């Protein structure tokens, strides 16, 4: 046994805390003290296996190495803690085996659920102390930024283009191409005349609004490895010539906010942010801004208006934010996962990343399994896995034990998929081909107690509640949609109301400025098409 106290890892991820991780951590500390046993309690992100939270990982160090082998136990409730001590988990663990206990799981990396994943973006989440720059660097952090500091901006951009990375926020636009537009917007915007308020001439904005139900990968990354996002944004700054970054974070994420603020402060203190990043003489400043509970502020132009201190209303395009974005300056707007994928791409090269995936969907996608599943959580996999594998092999089927009936992928604007479409492959084009969307990778499963007419009504209700109000089809159409669906459910003038609903969907689809109004018909129509029996049968 090494002389250093054992490292004991417990998650500080918001979901883990909601499942009792704080009580478990406190019980561990108290029991260790009571027994006079020294342990080093480390708070990490979550490994993403929510049914095993609170997960406790005990590191039996080899010599005085800080990177010993971990043995996991879970789910460990506070009441289970004394029995772990009794079993010798903290006093006589065998490296790689831990100590025998009913809750012993073995090494997380060896668990079937975990082993088959390709954790690129989430490699450090659940492993490192999210707020420790030293831990981050010890696990490969800042290598991508180091490389980028020695590269010409155009070369960084080319690497990201070559990696095949597409935006993970929903629209799947190639990230490198967006960056190229911002890089090349240089000359026109840097004259002092067009920059009278001496504001930065370009911006990097991270979209951390993560409003889609069923999604939490941004949150888990920000809480579990916030420095990875910091690094990705700094690289983006170098690539396009931006010196100021903002993370627009939804106000519903207080834990992520604390993690980001602390990580940013640590990065400044260690010289990875500020006027001289990594001793290069190059500048990048970063701060967090909070949203205020408006789903539409996830749409990039509404987000920019919100950052400017206005109502979050969608802007007409053109101009593209890449050319005229925040405060009228060329701006990169990227999702958290897009940006957090960049450090590894720089470190390992474009080909390394591109080699994962299928078709035009390259790399990996952090998939969020949510709703009525036994094993919910975060799975990172190369594109190409089928929905069925996710639902049954990873998700373990329904939590309720009843048959799975419908799955909504890609958030509230995504189509509902029936069991006959569960063999669809996770790939942007394959989903588009069946009128669905991958979006941000959220998978929400429903069992056979779901009322799909109620889900259709909710889709309209959500659109009505969250519409920015700019276009009539979205603002008024969605409210009408709720009424029409309520009449259909009540069996009132059904034929007439089905026709009305179809008209409304068409008008919303073609008369809306953005995808909130434009795509709300998708969950409605798919529910009707695949589950007509829930609408009283459609003649």
């Amino acid at each position, binding site marked *: 046994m090494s002389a250093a106290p054992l490292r004991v890892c417990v998650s500080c991820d918001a979901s883990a805390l909601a499942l009792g991780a704080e009580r478990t951590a406190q019980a561990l500390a108290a029991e260790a003290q009571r027994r006079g046993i020294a342990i080093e309690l480390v708070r990490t992100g979550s490994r993403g296996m929510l049914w095993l939270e609170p997960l406790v990982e005990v590191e039996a160090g080899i010599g005085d190495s800080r990177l010993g082998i971990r043995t996991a136990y879970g789910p460990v409730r506070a009441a289970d803690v004394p029995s772990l001590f009794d079993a010798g988990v903290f006093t006589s663990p065998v490296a790689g085996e831990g100590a025998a206990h009913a809750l012993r799981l073995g090494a997380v990396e060896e668990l079937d659920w975990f082993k088959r994943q390709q954790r690129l973006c989430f490699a450090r989440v659940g492993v490192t102390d999210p707020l420790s720059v030293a831990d981050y660097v010890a696990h490969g952090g800042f290598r991508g930024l180091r490389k980028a500091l020695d590269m010409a901006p155009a070369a960084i951009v080319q690497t990201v283009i070559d990696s095949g990375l597409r935006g993970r926020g929903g629209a799947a636009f190639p990230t490198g191409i967006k960056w190229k537009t911002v890089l090349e917007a240089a000359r026109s915007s840097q004259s002092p005349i067009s920059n009278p308020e001496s504001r930065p001439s370009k911006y990097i904005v991270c979209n951390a609004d993560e409003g889609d139900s069923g999604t939490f990968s941004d949150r888990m990354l920000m809480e579990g490895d916030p420095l990875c996002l910091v690094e990705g944004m700094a690289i983006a700054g170098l690539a396009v010539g931006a010196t100021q970054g903002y993370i627009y974070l939804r106000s519903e994420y207080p834990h992520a906010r604390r993690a980001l603020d602390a990580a940013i402060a640590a990065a400044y203190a260690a010289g990875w942010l500020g006027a001289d990043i990594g001793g290069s003489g190059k500048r990048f400043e970063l701060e967090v801004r909070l949203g205020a509970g408006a789903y539409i502020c996830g749409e990039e132009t509404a987000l920019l208006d919100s950052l400017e201190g206005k109502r979050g209303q969608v802007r007409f395009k053109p101009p593209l934010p890449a050319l005229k974005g925040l405060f009228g300056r060329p701006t990169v707007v990227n999702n958290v996962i897009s940006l957090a994928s960049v450090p590894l791409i720089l470190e390992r090269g474009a080909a390394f990343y591109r080699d994962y995936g299928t078709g035009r969907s390259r790399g990996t996608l952090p998939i969020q399994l949510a709703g009525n599943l036994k094993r919910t959580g975060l799975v990172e996999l190369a594109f190409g896995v089928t929905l069925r594998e996710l639902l049954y092999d990873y998700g373990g089927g329904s939590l309720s034990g009843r048959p799975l009936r419908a799955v909504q992928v890609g958030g*509230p604007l995504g189509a509902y998929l029936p069991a006959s479409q569960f063999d669809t492959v996770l790939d942007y084009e394959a989903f588009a081909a069946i009128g669905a969307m991958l979006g941000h990778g959220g998978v929400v499963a429903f069992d056979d107690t779901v009322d799909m007419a109620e889900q259709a009504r909710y889709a309209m209700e959500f659109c009505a509640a969250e519409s920015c109000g700019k276009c009539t089809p979205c603002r008024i159409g969605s409210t009408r949609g709720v009424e029409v669906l309520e009449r259909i459910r009540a069996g009132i003038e059904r034929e007439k109301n089905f026709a009305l609903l179809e008209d409304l969907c068409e008008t919303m689809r073609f008369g809306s400025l953005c995808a909130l109004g434009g795509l709300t018909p998708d969950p409605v129509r798919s529910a009707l098409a695949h589950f007509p029996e829930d609408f009283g049968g459609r003649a």
Partner: protein
Amino acid sequence: MKPLPARSGAAPSPALPADQAQAVQRAIAEHAARPGALLPLLHAVQDALGHVPPAALPVIAQALNLTRAEVHGVVSFYHHFRSTPPGRHVLRLCRAEACQARGARALEAHARRTLGIDFHQTTADGALTLEPVYCLGNCGCGPSLLLDADELHANVTADAFDALVGRLREEAGA
């Protein structure tokens, strides 16, 4: 977009009580010079006072060189900002799909029934305010509930909800 409140933005506002005025001034001093200052400023006011008093709007408007209507337009746009004080505790219940799939609709009905209030309302004893929220990023273990600033609850059953409410009321009584 929130439905516009009945109260017109142009109505004369009562004067701001001294302690509130002080909090507003502090928020202005800290945030007014930042680019895009309005949201950070409103957050600071609401964090300090629990709401954004309508009487604060002209003060904020003046500090940022905006019209009062502009500030009102922003406050009313965002669901997070409230213009009246909440109860001692705020319960935010998730209404979104992933939580629906795990029983959130039944929980919502239970919450309304047992508290005897609807969303956006406060119990008669001033103890609890019920607010809807659309996803808390806890979609793998819903139904989800956020208590006050940052106490997240997972797998909230009707019993767990009652126990939580009981605890909050007891703490208030003690």
